[in-house]
């Protein structure tokens, strides 16, 4: 099967700091791929570069066979890639419904038949339809995460980049969000999922890619990655020799 996303020696430098160093991997369509690594490993930077939020320094990004390395954020959305943010970025003075309508009306070249009905359906899917008239600034942390997902789903992406959608949530809310991600995958959207919560990653991902110091450390099934000595070392360090 042809990969939906292919990164070829992707690099991102911030002045003297190399945040991404020759990162290469492929993602098969239709699955959930986890992207993990210690703090500062470059996970969010990688999502930002793929989503066009920040430009790559070198390397190539191929999406559905098309080179999208130089697309800006709005161009990447039109190509079929949408992202969520670790800290939700709602349009605070707009209603929940208007927030979703932005994704629906601008995210895809296809025009929805009835934008309001379509937006309400998406809100129902993520479980906050009853809040549709409320200002986004009035939502709780859990509902803001759901709104963040609803907005990007409204853009009808083929590849969804999720950045720590479970951070700061209770166990119950985390479980609900993970069910939602599984639902989104069943609906045909491929997901690249960055998460610190390893239990969440192991619960929903088919494959896991591990990063450390801006480089790909390893990749494989969740079980294989979990038991990889290099991954354990990256997370908890080398055992000291007495």
């Amino acid at each position, binding site marked *: 099967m042809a990969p939906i996303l292919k990164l070829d020696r992707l690099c991102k430098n911030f002045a003297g700091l190399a945040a991404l160093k020759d990162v290469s991997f492929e993602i098969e369509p239709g699955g959930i791929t986890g992207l993990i690594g210690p703090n500062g490993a470059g996970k969010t930077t990688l999502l930002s570069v793929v989503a066009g939020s920040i430009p790559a320094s070198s390397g190539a990004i191929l999406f559905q066979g098309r080179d999208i390395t130089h697309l800006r954020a709005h161009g990447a959305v039109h190509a079929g890639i949408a*992202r969520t943010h670790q800290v939700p970025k709602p349009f605070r003075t707009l209603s929940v419904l208007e927030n979703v309508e*932005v994704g629906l009306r*601008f995210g895809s070249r296809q025009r929805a038949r009835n934008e309001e009905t379509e937006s309400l359906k998406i809100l129902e899917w993520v479980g906050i339809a009853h809040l549709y008239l409320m200002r986004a600034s009035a939502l709780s942390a859990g509902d803001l995460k759901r709104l963040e997902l609803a907005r990007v789903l409204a853009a009808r992406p083929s590849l969804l980049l999720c950045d720590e959608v479970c951070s700061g949530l209770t166990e119950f809310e985390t479980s609900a969000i993970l069910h939602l991600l599984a639902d989104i995958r069943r609906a045909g959207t491929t997901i690249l999922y960055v998460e610190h919560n390893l239990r969440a990653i192991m619960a929903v991902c088919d494959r896991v890619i591990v990063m450390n110091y801006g480089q790909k450390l390893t990749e494989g099934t969740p079980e294989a990655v979990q038991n990889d000595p290099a991954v354990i070392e990256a997370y908890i360090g080398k055992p000291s020799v007495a």
Partner: protein
Amino acid sequence: MTETAKQKEAFFSGAARLAIPSLLLGVLAVFPLAGPGPNAIRLLFVSLMWVSCSVGWNILGGFAGQISFGFAVFYGLGSYAAAISLNAGIPRPLALLIAATVAAFASVLVGIPTLRLRGPYFAIATIGVSEAVRVVMTNLQFTGGASGYRITERGAFNQHLHYYVALILAAIAVGLSVLVRRSKFGLALLSIREDEDAAADLGVNPFLCKLEAHALGAALTGAAGGVYAGYSDFIHPPGVFGFDISVAILLMPTIGGIGTIWGPVIGAVVYGLIHEELIASFPEFHLLLYGLLLILIILFEPGGVEGLFEKLIRFARTRSGSGSHSEA
């Protein structure tokens, strides 16, 4: 437009939303026929001209959240473009169209570099551009330089005609503002105002939308400058390109309620009516008073007159609601 947006305009809800502006337009249309003095017509003419500028600025500053201190550039260029057109014998409506087009074209030239900047950097850049254009116009011999440019009125001066031109332009400006606010384009501008990066992450092209809003606002301001040039017999750089013009255009929506439909209209009328009185009473301090007013509004009522009005209505409704509840 969604329910929340509709609710936001609650005090102009339902039939009142159409009836009140229509009634207002009707009253303004028959006003000169009721035989007021020329000074009253002049004051209202000036207010209507400011309405177009204020509403134009609000499309960029209020809806898209890009605070520009440089709209005098478009007002001035519109004035000069209309003045030159009128002197060349071009009919007034076409002269205003030329004024709007010149201003919109200039806004694109100014916007391409400046709209890539954000927040205070954009605001500072617009001050720089505005001053640069004023200096260029002061030294441009073709338009009379610092001595200014004289407009030859063809035929007898007709104050009513000027008044109606200003009224029609103000009505068009408000109509356009309503259309923008309710459109897909308007939603994009609001999302940019809230978070430009998040808007881009949902498919909005922030730069293009800001450039379009800038051009639309500039066109309305340029046309208003053209209306002013048609009314005056003389224009000069400090009078139409002055920094006080830029501040005034920014101050009006702030007084009335930034980012709303009616706030910029209310602010322009308030400004138009009190401006001359303030200059006459406090010739040295009037700009200081505007600064003070701006600080007070931002500190105590950022929603301006419209925000205050909405609060009062909400308060009255809550009172009447709790009253009827206790009666029950």
